């Protein structure tokens, strides 16, 4: 801002001491808590968001499973529906994380964002609180689907479930941060939906949720490797299917230049993506008036 006239100097009264670090933590907590409260209270959204993955699994999965028959995976020992199941968990996380961030646009539309933005808290805390809120919702939404494992013939052990939790968390975090970054630039709900249709659906289709990312045309291979969701869904699949009779579960693994990425490497890429996008979201939040 520019001050055009010479400002008269006015002595400033000392500010009451408020621990700003604690204030930011409190703000992150309450912003996160509000999101969870709303998510929990909106039972219909919960039901609806479970219906979609079920529909995919039952109709799409069963249909393709029977038409592909044993052809899928060339005798790898898994059916299409087994292959698809972790992808559907990933889909659920992807949609929930990004739609969770839409609440920012919603809050702007209905005025509540103003209450948040004028509060004497750091803007970065708002972005972090929102990203964590989206992460938690998406994680819950994805992990709930684990109860379906017996119905699609996927065997889970306690150990695999324990491994799946952090993997679901990094995928959820990456996509929630992505959603918050996009939402922080959006002014209207319509705009957000347009962007989401051009970003979210391609992200889903190219992520390997529905088909293996091997032997694809060159251009498509490149796009699938650019898609951050690929790095989140692949490790979930490898861990979820590790007890399902695959001779070598790493044969599913995402490759770059013929080299199979390790699970920690994939999770690391996902986490880095989330951190960078959260940084973008923070900058966007700090910038806007």
């Amino acid at each position, binding site marked *: 801002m520019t001050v055009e006239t010479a400002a008269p100097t006015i002595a400033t009264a000392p500010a009451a001491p408020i621990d700003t670090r604690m204030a930011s933590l409190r703000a992150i907590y309450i912003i996160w808590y509000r999101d969870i409260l709303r998510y929990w209270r909106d039972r219909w959204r919960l039901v609806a968001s479970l219906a979609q993955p079920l529909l995919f699994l039952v109709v799409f999965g069963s249909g393709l499973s029977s038409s592909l028959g044993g052809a899928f995976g060339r005798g790898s020992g898994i059916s299409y529906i087994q292959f698809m199941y972790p992808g559907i968990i990933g889909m659920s996380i992807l949609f929930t994380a990004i739609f969770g961030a839409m609440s920012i646009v919603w809050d702007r539309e209905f005025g509540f964002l103003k209450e948040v933005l004028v509060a004497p808290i750091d803007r970065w805390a708002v972005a972090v609180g929102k990203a964590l809120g989206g992460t938690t919702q998406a994680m819950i939404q994805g992990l709930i689907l684990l109860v379906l494992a017996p119905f699609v013939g996927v065997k889970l052990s306690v150990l695999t479930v324990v491994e799946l939790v952090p993997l679901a968390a990094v995928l959820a975090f990456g996509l929630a941060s992505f959603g918050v970054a996009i939402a922080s630039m959006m002014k209207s709900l319509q705009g957000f939906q347009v962007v989401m249709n051009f970003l979210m659906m391609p992200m889903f289709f190219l992520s390997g949720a529905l088909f293996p990312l091997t032997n694809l045309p060159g251009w498509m291979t490149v796009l699938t490797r650019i898609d951050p969701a690929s790095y989140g869904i692949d490790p979930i699949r490898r861990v979820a299917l590790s007890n399902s009779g695959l001779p070598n579960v790493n044969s599913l693994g995402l490759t770059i230049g013929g080299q199979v990425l390790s699970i920690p490497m994939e999770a690391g890429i996902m986490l880095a993506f989330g951190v960078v996008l959260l940084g973008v979201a923070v900058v966007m939040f700090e910038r806007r*008036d």
Partner: protein
Amino acid sequence: MTDTVIEAKGLVKKYGDLVAVAGIDLEVRAGEIFGFLGPNGAGKSTTISMLCTLLTPTAGVARVAGIDVVHDPAAVRQRIGLVFQDPSLDEQLTGRENLEFHAFVYSVPAPDRRRRIDEMLNLLQLADRAASPVKTYSGGMKRRLEIARGMLHQPQILFLDEPTLGLDPQTRKSIWTHLNELRSAKGVTIFMTTHYMDEAEYCDRIAIIDRGKIVALGTPEELKQMVGGDVVTITSTQPDDAAREINTLLGVTATRDNGSLRMEVPDGKAFVPRLVRELSAPVDTVSLRRPSLDDVFLKLTGRAIREEEVSSRDWNRALASRWMGRRR
């Protein structure tokens, strides 16, 4: 510490070539209800936004609660309560949950949270509905909840931007009762904007703003004294002739206002019989009244603020927000 809680000097806000606020000076004293009165587009909201640190002034200085609004906006925000013109509640949450959210982001100490929330809910008569979602509240209840929220972190000053817009007269009155109660219970200074003339009467002092400048400042009584004595209004089938006669025979300037003639005279009771006796032009009706703030505004700006001047945009917005609130 002086008892001045808001101080502005030469406050200007420009948007490109458009000057929204053209240099405002004012001082607000601790504990008073200060009204900012003017038509839409006069610069009320822009000024209040600058004082609340929501907008950065183009030029000038403002100090709120002793702190420069440009220098340390966060410290100012900690010391002020805000009630916005547009609704800003989370309708999915309950009244109490909305207050809890606020208590957290404004760093209300943990041991005080519950006590202060209960106190505010009681003061604004929302205690029995505190556990209901805000979407089930009436317009007046939502406003009261926003006022309760604005007071939760014990601000020195409560800013309200058109707090009664879109509310029915009875609800408007109850909002005022609550504001007065808050002032006496909490000693808070209240700074508010309105374009309702009758509401300005509740204020201790008023600044009348027009085209980005303060045209008058004082108590409602002082402002009314700016209009000399009484206001006499007549209607006539020949208003032009009547106006000429009033000017030549009685030495009073009458102004045309929507087919009626309006004049300010020192002693209305003595003037009316003379008027009726001496005028040859037909007089249909005569009315005599004490000056209102409307008259002050008219005298200062040559225009009237009327209810119709509430722009259709404002009404649409008020209606839309209610409708959407119910729909959510």
